[in-house]
């Protein structure tokens, strides 16, 4: 009995303290070091923030370089298939241009009408200041089962701050949750930690909650509200962060929202800096 206890304690101690050969550090010393780093990072000691920011900037750049081969081959096959479909694509685009030409007149009329109505209501016209938009490249798009986020190549140097909305082709994709000097992390709408106030076509208000899957879901809808498919979902702007009316997605029969932008296919995004200028954060 005592022999087996001795065996246990010898093996246990050896596993924790063993060094020599290729092992220059014992597991125990590294556990202590990891705990120190963890608590310094979590409790945000003043000097750890710039160190973490510098580390982030360096590692994100290396990650971008290291991922180049994985981005190159899918892009080549995509380009090749595009090349072979060019004729059909051309015809489709011509038809689309004709359709949009007729719609353009309507849009012009509606825009003027909208501006006039906003003037009457003395509300703010959020999209007037286009110089407050920064275009950023997606550096890292690592698909984690637990955290849906992307890294962009613009940071505090460009004026990006925590909380700023991020869009792609004017569709909302998420918000900035971490800023470094040269890079930022954007929390996507489908992340489990993402909650934003939205409004539906018919005027109902709700909260769009990320579920960790591709399609976020709607919460806190009016009690008697029945979800039907193909209802447009927009940011309501009630949080003072997202511009009201920014399109997000469309509802489906499962009560989820299919995003207009596939969060896994982002290459470039735009960050709206107007929140900073409006002094809302």
């Amino acid at each position, binding site marked *: 009995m005592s022999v087996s206890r001795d*065996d*246990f304690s*010898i*093996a*246990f101690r*050896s*596993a*924790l303290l*063993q060094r020599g*050969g*290729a*092992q*220059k*550090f*014992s*597991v125990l010393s*590294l*556990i202590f*070091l*990891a*705990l*120190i*780093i*963890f608590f*310094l*990072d*979590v409790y945000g000691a003043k000097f750890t923030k710039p160190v*973490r920011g510098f*580390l*982030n900037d360096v*590692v*994100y750049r*290396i*990650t971008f370089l*290291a*991922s180049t081969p*994985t*981005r190159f081959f899918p892009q080549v096959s995509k380009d090749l298939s595009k090349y072979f479909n060019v004729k059909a694509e051309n015809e489709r685009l011509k038809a689309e241009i004709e359709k949009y030409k007729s719609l353009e007149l309507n849009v012009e009329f509606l825009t003027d009408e909208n501006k006039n109505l906003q003037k009457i209501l003395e509300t703010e016209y959020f999209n007037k200041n286009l110089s407050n938009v920064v275009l950023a490249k997606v550096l*890292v*798009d*690592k*698909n*984690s*089962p*637990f*955290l849906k*986020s992307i890294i962009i190549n613009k940071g505090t140097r460009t004026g990006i701050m925590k909380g700023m909305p991020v869009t792609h082709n004017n569709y909302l994709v998420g918000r900035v*949750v*971490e800023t470094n000097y040269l890079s930022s*992390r954007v929390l996507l709408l489908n992340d*489990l*930690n993402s909650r934003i106030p939205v409004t539906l076509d018919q005027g109902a208000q709700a909260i769009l909650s990320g*579920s*960790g*899957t*591709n399609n976020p879901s709607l919460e806190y809808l009016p009690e008697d509200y029945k979800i039907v498919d193909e209802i447009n979902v927009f940011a309501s702007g009630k949080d003072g962060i997202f511009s009201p009316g920014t399109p997000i997605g469309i509802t489906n029969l499962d009560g989820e929202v299919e995003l207009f932008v596939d969060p*896994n296919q982002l290459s470039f995004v735009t960050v709206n800096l107007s929140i900073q200028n409006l002094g809302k954060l």
Partner: protein
Amino acid sequence: MAKTSLFYKIYNAGPLLLLYYLCISEVDSNLEKIFEIFTLNFQIILIYFWVLKRPEIMANGHIFLAGLINDVVMGFPLGISSLSYLIIIFVGTYVRNKSVNTTIASDWFTFFIAMVFSNLLFFSLLNNFSDLDFSNSKIGYNMFFTLFTFPIFWFLFNIYQMTFIGNRDA
């Protein structure tokens, strides 16, 4: 193969390079796009197998550093992945010290214990010291698929070991 040859050194460094590459690159072992619930923690399989079979090619310091890089890329608090990987090393080294001969069944069972301890620490720390929310079902799927793909990688790594490095185990 002579142990001093360049190829031998490259083959020896292979698992460690793969670990670093998985941590720093966009390449991930989550096939959610194909099958929505399929996610696995490949890094812990890699670390456990090589710590168990050839600890000299998986130095603790390198695994610690890979964990820090993983935290930066994934946006977790610094040190949390390192801690989780160190628990895997600890259990792997303990099992190695206690056992004379290992089989796939024993490795699989002890891997389960290592993974449970490692994930328990990882998610407890995240839950208590960060604002991140996690879905329990996602954690469950991740553990399930990590556990059930272990034998596949066990065979693949064994083939790699026998072909390129040479089998040293009893």
